[in-house]
């Protein structure tokens, strides 16, 4: 079973079209293995992206050097998944 230890989901907010284009460039950086949960649309809409642990530092550095704002939407994806699984197991037992 694939686990997501160390993965985070970042919420990225562009302040203008230029930053939006820079975020769009992330989509083409295949080696980061990013999973866009909410894709690049317009400046008013944040972008949510799941970042594997091995890419976290690089992606954050990329965003910070371009002065693109982001927040950590999900700090520990695996912890949330385990909680979800525990809830399902509890229901099944009940």
């Amino acid at each position, binding site marked *: 079973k694939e686990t997501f230890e160390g993965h985070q989901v970042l919420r990225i907010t562009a302040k203008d079209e230029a930053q939006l284009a820079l975020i769009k460039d992330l989509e083409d950086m295949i080696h980061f293995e990013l999973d866009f949960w909410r*894709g690049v649309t317009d400046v008013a809409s944040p972008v*949510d992206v799941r970042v594997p642990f091995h890419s976290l530092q690089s992606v954050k550095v990329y965003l910070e050097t371009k002065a693109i704002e982001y927040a950590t939407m999900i700090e520990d994806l695996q912890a949330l998944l385990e909680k979800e699984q525990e809830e399902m197991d509890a229901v099944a037992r009940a």
Partner: protein
Amino acid sequence: ARSTDSFDYANYHTISEIYNFQDMLVRENPNLVSKIVIGQSYEGRPLSVLKFSTGANRPGLWIDTGIHSREWVTQASGTWFAKKIATAYGSDPALTAILNNMDIFLLIMTNPDGFAYTQTNNRMWRKTRKPNPGSSCVGVDPNRNWDAGFGEPGASNNPCSETYRGPRANSESEVKSIVDFVRSHGNLKSFISIHSYSQMLLYPYGYTSTPAKDQAELHSLAKKAITALASLYGTRYRYGSIINTIYQASGGTIDWTYNQGIKYSYTFELRDTGDYGFLLPANQIIPTAEETWLALMVIMKHAYKNAY
């Protein structure tokens, strides 16, 4: 659960529990609900549509959930919708009037292989599970596999992409089965495909910026629908055409259904109040389903009252 009354709608369930739920609902409501198997998935799972009907040869309203398997709140909401339709018939005048004149078709498990895979191997799986010859990457995005602008910008030709369109339109049995059903039925009046998250109600087109012929009506109806939705918990939705509201997306479900003449073709992106993405906590399933139901009713009522 021993019956659909004791089924726990406030939690996520396995695929077999949902299939069992469907069978129970059919057994409990033999004069209203039947199950139609319209095809099977790549791995051989049934594509079971619940048909809510009170008469023969009626026009139909279609709802599907879960085409992107990791969007668990959609299958969970679909289960709640099924029970709601069964219980509201005879007590809710608006739904009763609809069902006295039209059929409702509900496909809860639109991508069953993907859903099973989310529960056994990879919770974040979105696509189908058919292998791609020549690639180690599996699956096709079933919302890029329809014959509407297929292969144009807004989908990927890379099998490793989450938006891989597939080798050709309708290459996925999960898509082809719906296509065959829609064509053979020939009289669907609305088609609503449900996704999550990001809180949007969208209408065609996604593959072209040319406005849909009925854009004004679709826009106005979307506004009514999201207003009804927001009346329950204040959940705010955006609405508009796919290409103008999200981005260019080719080969999408409702672009194809609209081009088939199903005027009221919409796609939902359900709620994410609390920044959970695809991991919406189970305690939000019922509020999500309840508010979405209000919007669904607006669209279904409109389709019923504005025959074409």
